[in-house]
């Protein structure tokens, strides 16, 4: 039976709907010993900022029940070093490269970053990470404010024709409202969810297990929340959704698709099984065949309620 796995995210055509999430796949090179990278639907890079960032002191991660906390603090070498040292490898893979970007001094830095990336052909799309819980000293994120989200997406939209994805935070009252702002301002797609703010305490030392205290929770523990948020956003906006949060196998990837995600993204699970994204691609194909569904797009948002 012929099955179609390809999907469209804005102007991007993906050969399958499985991508790997920002910050959980390094710059892809780290995985080259373990999987055939060219089979991935797309690769999202670790978030890049204009200037290099050193990140937070250790401990930066800890395990929790069916999940993990991280506060890396967006360590990255900055855009110029990325372009010189990391992009050449990514370019050769023949897989759409989605550049995740963030800024501390929005919107000026965002605009500078996007302008720089706009002229690079190897960059297939830009993901605006306005939802990283581990970077701003200020208490709030852009992705927690519908107006701020609208403003930044609109500004960026003016200066690039590349596919624009806005990455949303689950640490909000209504994620659908934020998604709506992103859509209204011209975002081609939304990706969700970034990590949930969380904390874990070492009772022997009576100190937080992560150096900076509050961190971001990811992994299977957050999946039901993520699936619900995808469903809410699906019911509010028309732009495609990239769903993520605790996907560890084909079944969990399908949950997101059924809830309304056009593509899914694998995060923490890459740490547990570096081959998982490819296993999920095969698993999705098998599911389509077994259920006599010709096109994965037919499944998107098809949960019966």
């Amino acid at each position, binding site marked *: 039976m012929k099955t179609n796995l390809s999907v469209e995210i804005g102007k991007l055509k993906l050969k399958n709907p499985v991508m790997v999430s920002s910050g959980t796949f390094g710059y892809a090179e780290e995985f080259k010993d373990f999987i055939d990278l060219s089979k991935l639907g797309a690769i999202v890079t670790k978030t890049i900022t204009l200037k290099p960032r050193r990140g937070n002191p250790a401990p930066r*991660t800890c395990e929790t029940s069916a999940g993990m906390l991280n506060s890396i603090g967006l360590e990255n070498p900055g855009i110029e070093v990325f372009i010189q040292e990391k992009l050449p490898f990514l370019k050769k893979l023949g897989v759409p490269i989605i550049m995740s970007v963030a800024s501390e001094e929005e919107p000026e830095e965002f605009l500078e970053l996007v302008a720089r990336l706009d002229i690079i052909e190897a960059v297939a799309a830009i993901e605006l990470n306005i939802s990283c819980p581990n970077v701003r000293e200020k208490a709030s994120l852009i992705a927690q404010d519908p107006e701020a989200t609208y403003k930044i997406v609109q500004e960026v939209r003016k200066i690039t024709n590349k596919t624009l994805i806005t990455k949303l935070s689950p640490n909000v009252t209504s994620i659908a409202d934020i998604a709506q702002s992103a859509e209204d301002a011209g975002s081609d797609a939304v990706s969700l969810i970034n990590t949930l703010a969380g904390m874990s305490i070492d009772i022997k030392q009576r100190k937080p297990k992560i150096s900076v205290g509050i961190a971001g929770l990811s992994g299977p523990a957050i999946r039901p929340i993520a699936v619900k948020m995808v469903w809410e956003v699906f019911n509010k906006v028309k732009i495609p959704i990239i769903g993520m949060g605790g996907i560890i196998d084909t079944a969990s990837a399908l949950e997101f698709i059924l809830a309304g995600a056009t593509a899914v993204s694998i995060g923490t699970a890459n*740490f547990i099984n570096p081959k998982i994204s490819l296993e999920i691609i095969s698993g999705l194909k098998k599911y389509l065949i077994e259920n006599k569904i010709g096109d994965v797009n037919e499944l998107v948002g098809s949960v019966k309620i």
Partner: protein
Amino acid sequence: MKACQLKLKISAQVRIKDNYWHCEFSAPQIAKIALPGQFIDIRVNDLCEPLLRRPISIHGVSRAKIKIFYAVVGKATEILARKRTGEYLDIIGPLGSGFALGKQKTVNSKQMLVAGGMGVAPLMFLAEKLTEGRKQRAENRITVLIGAKTKKQLLCADDFKKLGCIVKIATDDGSQGFHGKVTDLLHNLSSDFRSLPSAIYACGPKPMLQAVADISNQRGFPAQLSLEEHMSCGIGACLGCVVKTQAGFKRVCKEGPVFNSRDLVW
């Protein structure tokens, strides 16, 4: 060097004493290329508890087999100890950058290994490699300093002796050997010009490694330290396992776990 993800069969699983275990896997791909100081990352089950892999040092290599030496301290190591010969585990390795061995034809007593607690694990493999195929004359043997809280928790002393190493012991409570920290023992030895080490390889708890770094930096001999940090991916992707160095944060799983004492910032 290429790391791989493999389903490895347990060829032996033996309790040494108390909560300390030896486990051996048939792993020709890893055995062929493994270097002392490198580690493997083990997934102890297919469930979400525990979620992440656990890093364990390579303790020894013989032909197609690799050996680990571990202490049961929590969830994952408890599950690991319940696995039996013939069962399979999902393992990634070899990972990290190991000890730099140097090129000398003979080993000598001025090369010192310093182990604290479980720190013996990677140093055993190192001692094997350092002595392998090299002349170890009686007056010219590697020295191994082993520290433990008590005599009961002393590990691997006889194994190092079997390799022909000079073993010196320190226990915190004085129940065997030198009464005090292994780093005090090192300090005493290196105060005497005749026993000043030419190179140090150390693994153990952080405070111990910091003391080794202080002594080596003061006395001016090089020390390679094997560090531990909590790891999520083990392959350099998550940036979770960093330590501070003169050149910024470095990943323990990739640039480490072995670092030059002079490069570290404590």
